[in-house]
């Protein structure tokens, strides 16, 4: 069986703003008529994305604020209806109840029933999966323990801190021992310890053969955890692939530090480099790609009195990629805007 753990095809989600957007039964046709008259406004949150996550993967879903990550996740979770396009969860079309029985979900900035105590809270979610009384109790206790909340089991959630809420939210997502876990910003609001706990937990889930799909802004966590990532910006997927491929593509910059390169030879070398600067008697050259490294070094050796201090391949960080893609998306968007007929 070659089945995706999760997939979307040509997914589009447009929000209608203003009060007309809140009226159900107004089909797109009617709302569009109002838009033409300028009465309704729309936000294109997701503009046609296609990707899939394979079983057993830890997949990172990245992108700047407002990129459309949460919107995509909400469509997958059946919370909002797509404007067009489709998706699948565990091989079944969205909304399939059997697939949802094997799904775990933690929403962004969760808030929970504050009048419940942790065990009641988890018991409530366990009931939604038709588990027996004994099984509900066993799992709730095990998860409380796993997430380090046993000490707080007599407090209502009203008295939980933000990080504790995040933890009980993760526990809730795991109550059915899901095959696919979707987490929208699981690390947000957590202290370094909490982040490490969630990281360990995701590793553990991976070891158990589960699929984890999570969005995050904390790139260090993503680099440490993910097999593959997708970078989304302005409603589109800008980049997708294995972390390794994305970060070490053909263009890997190199940083070269020298001493005693001055005057005309320095100018000549600087012309080859993307950047050149001098500080406390050391010259730093940054080559855009290692393809010209050899010729650069040849030229350097010819310079009298020059000393090579270091050659450091500059691996692109996920952060570089993230910032680059976000900037490209912005530029593309502005261009599309200006290119469009008035």
């Amino acid at each position, binding site marked *: 069986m070659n089945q995706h753990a999760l997939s979307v095809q040509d997914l589009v989600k447009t*929000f209608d703003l203003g009060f007309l957007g809140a*009226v*159900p*039964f107004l089909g797109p046709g009617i709302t569009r008529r109002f838009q033409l008259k300028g009465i309704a406004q729309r936000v294109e949150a997701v503009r046609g994305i296609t990707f899939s996550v394979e079983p057993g993967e830890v997949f990172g879903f990245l992108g700047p604020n407002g990129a459309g990550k949460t919107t995509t996740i*909400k469509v997958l*979770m*059946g*919370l*909002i*209806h797509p404007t067009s396009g489709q998706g699948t969860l565990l091989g079944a079309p969205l909304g399939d*109840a*059997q697939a*949802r*029985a094997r*799904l775990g*979900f*933690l*929403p962004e*900035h*969760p*808030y*929970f*029933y504050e*009048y*419940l105590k942790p065990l*009641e809270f988890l018991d*409530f*979610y366990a*009931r*939604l*999966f*038709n588990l027996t009384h004994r099984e509900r109790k066993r799992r709730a206790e095990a998860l409380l323990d796993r997430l380090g909340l046993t000490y707080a089991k007599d407090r209502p959630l009203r008295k939980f801190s933000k990080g504790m809420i995040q933890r009980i*939210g993760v526990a*809730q*997502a795991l109550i*059915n021992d899901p095959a696919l876990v979707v987490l929208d910003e699981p690390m947000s609001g957590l202290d370094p310890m909490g982040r490490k706990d969630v990281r360990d937990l995701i590793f553990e889930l991976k070891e158990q053969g589960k699929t984890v799909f999570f969005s995050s802004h904390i790139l260090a966590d993503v680099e440490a955890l993910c097999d593959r990532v997708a970078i989304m910006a302005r409603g589109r997927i800008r980049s997708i692939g294995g972390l390794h491929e994305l970060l070490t593509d053909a263009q890997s910059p190199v940083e070269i530090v020298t001493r005693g390169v001055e005057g005309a030879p320095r100018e000549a070398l600087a012309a080859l480099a993307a950047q050149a600067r001098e500080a406390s008697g050391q010259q730093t050259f940054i080559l855009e790609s290692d393809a010209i490294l050899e010729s650069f070094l040849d030229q350097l050796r010819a310079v009298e009195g020059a000393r090579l201090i270091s050659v450091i391949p500059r691996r692109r960080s996920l952060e570089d990629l993230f910032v680059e893609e976000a900037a490209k998306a912005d530029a593309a968007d502005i261009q599309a805007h200006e290119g469009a007929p008035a």
Partner: protein
Amino acid sequence: MSQIFAIALNTFREATRNRVFASLILFAVAMLLLTLAVSSASLHEEVRLMKDIGLFLISTFSVLISIFIGVNLVYKEIERKTIFTIIPKPIFRFQFLLGKYFGLASTMLIQLIFMSTVLALIFWGLDANFGEEMVQALLLIYIEVLIVIAIALFFSSFSTPFLSGLLTIGAFIIGRFVDRILVIRLASKDEMTPALENVKTFVKTIAHIVPDLSIFNTTPYVVYEDPIDWSYVLNGVGYGVTYVIILLFLASLMFTRRDFI
């Protein structure tokens, strides 16, 4: 089934652990005691009056609490985003809605039993007769409450609590006076203009759609200690349950199409 029960239990817990709810009930009981104390001290025919006032207070409070909680039932879950963790679970949206309904319905049942017990205890203390007709009246009040909750849930399945509250109160008032509205004469035949004719059709249409709640008010019989026929009560139950089913069905239709944003 287990899903509906889980939602209902959670709704029941939320209501009963809410301080506002507890204080409303205490307030209602206090009102009941106070009014009955005043009426029994100052007037003769006190038992009749006490029944009248007691039933009036119990039904008014029950309806108000139902509307107050009912219009917020679903809205709160969306506003606080707690619904985000429910919908992705293996539960259908109509099951969620039914769970919310049964949760509040059972809360109101407990509430009503509690208030009725207080009333019965007062009667017992005064050596007054708390007969079959009182039980019938209270049962019908509960059926009315069930309809009101369904109306509130229906409106709130697609609009804000404030608007739902207004609409539910409107429907409730019209429902209570349906029998009178239907026989209203706006004007005599020759004064009738087309505009007035339209108003009349509109009002009559509304009055036909809204459930006739006047049938649940049996106070006039109760006051004269006249047990009504159980077949009348059963009819009322049937009528109420039918309305509830229709309203919940429509609410589910609206709710299924919603985006939770």
